């Protein structure tokens, strides 16, 4: 994607700059170290040379000069014999140039003896001379000596002590030619510089290598962090942040047209609850991959969280073509998926909002697409384009969630009951509790209007708890009124995901003093369908208590027979889809007949849902079906209305005409 290429380029540039700074910064101490060491080496060479000269002159003084001066008195000058023996012992050294100067001074600084006969100099003011006169010899390097024709010399000033008593006679000045020593020092310094240069270069290389490595590691780390911050770790798709950014850029682009699509998987929670999270995760990965594969590379697919995906189709403005495209995408997503050896299909709802026509900010786009998506959930096609007129604020899932939460707390919910009859006797054996919502603005809402939202959120738990308590409370009341009916409550797959639910049921039974045998819990086929350990365990526990478990809407989902066999199921309710066309369809009759046989074979009772005519009821009774439920007898209504109806016909309800 162009976005990540740009980011990569920026990272590379940043890394190079950082490396250059590192390199420059480490070059400074390395060079400083080099200069210091070289200079130190050079200085040490000179110090060594002068200190050597000091010792040399000390030996010259002891062995050459002093012996010639025994009993001398500088204040009287030298005697001829003293001068003669001094010349004798120094001439050669002076002549061949090793000694550039050799002079003797009295303590006043007057020359007593000079190697070249020049006795004119007076040195008294020279501090080095004064120090030497007081017993502190010194050696200094003179760059050009006194005469410009001469090279550098080391000048040494030291006392002359010709007597055993240690009495000093005067000061000796010797200048030793320095050139050879200088050459040696230079050679040593050169050698040191070469060694040093190699060492420092190696050091610098190591530093550079470390810097390069560190920079690269940092860069990679930063890139990984950035990617992590902007991508969903599960699917590898851009996350909500990045999707928002990309969308904003698309919306802000001049004359930018396009469509923002929200995709939501239907019944994903059920998969998650029944098959476990790893299966849910795998499903999301598959869906993400399918979405991406069926779109263009310019389009952005993102996972916004949970089972919600976002798609940005830049440049798209043809509504019909977009719907057509997304319908194809939806088909691709809906292809069969095998998870944990189970095959399932997943439906997705698509909500589309075009910009800039229907919204020009990302916020509005998301809101409108969300609204369209919820419409799609209830609609026939699953792909809905947002139209302003069709917008209903209540379809906003968040608003609905908020309202539903309040509804549970404020008792805006109510239960209606539909009786289940023995087909053979016409007696009511059980009533199914059906929840309604007395919405303050929108009137009485059927479950389809709010149950999906509840199931998609945590609200399903308080809702089920409410229904359970209310149904059992009602059950206790009609038992008091002399009606020994059982009560059936629908529970979601999500409720069965935790053992806690068993406790909730047990406590509610205890609180309402209803015997467990009176309670039927109806679960959807999907919840039973997969071998999810937890669901099975919960069902077993419920059965142990004595509660009956029914499989609702049997025949439209997936149920493995082995799984049916493995669970303690008391009742199977055949979906109304098979009952509705029973009179016309030979196949449906065959299916229903065999389901009845199958259920009986498994030790379950069978209930037919949606019975609307007496003929159907008769056929079912002939086929051996145990119970029937439907408008033929009674629409869902408050239980008080069922009691008089029951009383009117004794124990059996009369058939009422179909609506």
């Amino acid at each position, binding site marked *: 994607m162009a976005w990540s290429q740009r980011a990569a380029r920026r990272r590379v540039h940043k890394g190079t700059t950082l490396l250059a700074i590192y390199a420059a910064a480490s070059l400074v101490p390395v060079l400083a170290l080099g200069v210091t060491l070289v200079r130190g080496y050079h200085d040490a060479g000179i110090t060594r040379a002068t200190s050597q000269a000091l010792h040399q002159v000390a030996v010259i003084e002891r062995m050459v000069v002093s012996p010639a001066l025994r009993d001398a008195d500088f204040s009287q000058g030298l005697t001829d014999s003293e001068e003669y023996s001094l010349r004798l012992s120094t001439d050669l050294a002076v002549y061949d140039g090793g000694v550039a100067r050799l002079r003797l001074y009295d*303590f006043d600084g007057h020359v007593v003896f000079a190697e070249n006969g020049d006795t004119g100099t007076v040195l008294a003011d020279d501090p080095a001379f004064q120090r030497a006169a*007081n*017993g502190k010899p010194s050696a200094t390097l003179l760059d050009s000596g006194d005469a410009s024709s001469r090279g550098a010399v080391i000048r040494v000033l030291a006392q002359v002590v010709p*007597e*055993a*008593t*240690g*009495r*000093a006679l005067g000061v000796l000045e010797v200048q030793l030619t320095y050139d050879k020593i200088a050459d040696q020092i230079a050679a040593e310094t050169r050698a040191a510089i070469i060694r040093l240069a190699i060492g420092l270069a190696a050091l610098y290389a190591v530093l550079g290598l470390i810097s390069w490595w560190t920079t690269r590691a940092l860069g990679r780390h930063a890139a990984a962090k950035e990617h992590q911050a902007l991508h969903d770790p599960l699917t590898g798709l851009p996350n909500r942040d990045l999707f928002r950014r990309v969308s904003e850029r698309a919306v802000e682009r001049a004359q930018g047209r396009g469509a923002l699509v929200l995709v939501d998987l239907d019944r994903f929670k059920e998969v998650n609850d029944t098959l476990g999270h790893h299966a849910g995760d795998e499903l999301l990965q598959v869906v993400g991959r399918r979405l991406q594969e069926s779109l263009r590379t310019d389009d952005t697919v993102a996972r916004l969280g949970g089972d919600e995906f976002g798609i940005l189709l830049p440049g798209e403005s043809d509504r019909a073509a977009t719907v057509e495209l997304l319908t194809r995408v939806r088909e691709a997503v809906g292809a069969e998926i095998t998870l944990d050896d189970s095959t399932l299909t997943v439906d997705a709802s698509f909500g589309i909002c075009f910009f800039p026509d229907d919204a020009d900010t990302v916020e509005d786009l998301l809101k409108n697409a969300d609204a369209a998506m919820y419409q799609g959930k209830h609609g026939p096609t699953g792909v809905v384009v947002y139209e302003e007129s069709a917008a209903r604020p209540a379809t906003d899932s968040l608003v609905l969630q908020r309202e539903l939460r309040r509804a549970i707390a404020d008792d805006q919910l109510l239960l209606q009951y539909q009786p289940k009859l023995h087909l053979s006797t016409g007696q009511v054996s059980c009533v199914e509790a059906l929840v309604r919502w007395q919405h303050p603005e929108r009137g009485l809402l059927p479950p389809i209007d709010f149950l999906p939202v509840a199931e998609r959120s945590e609200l399903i738990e308080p809702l089920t708890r409410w229904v359970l308590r209310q149904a059992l409370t009602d059950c206790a009341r009609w038992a008091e009124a002399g009606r020994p009916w059982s009560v059936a409550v629908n529970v979601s797959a999500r409720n069965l995901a935790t053992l806690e639910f068993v406790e909730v049921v047990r406590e509610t039974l205890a609180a309402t003093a209803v015997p467990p045998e009176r309670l039927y819990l109806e679960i959807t086929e999907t919840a039973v369908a997969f071998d999810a350990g937890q669901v099975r365990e919960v069902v077993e526990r419920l059965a142990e208590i004595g509660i009956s478990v029914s499989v609702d809407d049997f025949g439209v989902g997936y149920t493995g027979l082995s799984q049916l066999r493995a669970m303690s199921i008391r009742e199977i309710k055949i979906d109304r889809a098979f009952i509705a066309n029973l009179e016309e369809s030979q196949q449906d009759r065959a299916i229903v007949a065999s389901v009845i046989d199958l259920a009986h074979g498994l030790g379950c009772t069978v209930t037919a849902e949606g019975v609307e005519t007496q003929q159907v009821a008769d056929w079912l009774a002939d086929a051996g079906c145990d119970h029937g439920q439907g408008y033929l007898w009674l629409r869902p209504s408050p239980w008080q209305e069922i009691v008089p109806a029951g009383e009117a016909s004794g124990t059996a309800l009369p058939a009422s005409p179909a609506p």
Partner: protein
Amino acid sequence: MLVRRTALASLLPALLLAGCAAAGSEPDQQDAPSLSVDEDLHALLPADVRERGVLRIGTDPSYAPMSSYGEDGRTIVGMEPDLGDALGDVLGVDVRFVDTDFTTILPDVDTGRLDLGMSAMTDTPERAEQVDFVNYFSAGTSILVQRGNPAGVFELEDLCGKVAAVEKGTTQVDLLDRAQGRCDDEPIDVRTYGTNSDALVQLRTGRAAAVLNDLPPAALLVTDPDTKANYQLASTAQLEPGLYGVAVDKDLPGLRDAVQAALEVLVDRGVYADVLAHWGVEDGAVQDVTVNSGR
């Protein structure tokens, strides 16, 4: 003069006990505050000395630790210069030590070229004929040999037939002369040198079998790190102990008495003991400063 810091540090408490507050200054210099000029003694000094304000004291600086050249090769240091300086403090004059051949000290004192002689000179009857001596130290003679004693010298008799190096004009020359009688056939080859250092050169270079020194300088030579590798004592015996004396012209009894009284002041004040202790020669201290007490 140079005083080692450690020596100075050890000397300080003693000076403070003596009522001196000369912290940081050198202990035996004329400015030591415990010493004040004694005007009576100053008055005893000869007129020319008082006029000059300087007391010239002759010494042969080849006899550490009594007197020798310091490390600078130009200043004379030792027990005698320190004592002389303190003497000057009491007498109210400056003191100058003059490098003089040992043999010319007495003649120079006699002629007045020097006011005093102070050079580890033993007060002997012969010398006492020429000058008066104010006795300030006691020491006998030791025999120095090369380390390892290669010539096998343990007492004077062992020197018979061997070379003994001594400084010219010292009592050691007389001592060796008297010892000649104990040699059977071969006498001691006594060679004299202008300074004690020259005599030591002979020993160090193996040209002499022994050097005769007073005990203090001999003891220093065998303990000083610079020289102890070369010398050792032939025995612990001290031969013919005697008293050192400050030589004074017999014609100047006032000067003699002034020196005697001033030295007594130094003894009384403890300065004398401090100086001797500083140079490690306290064993040679005298109880009283006497005149012409030599044998």
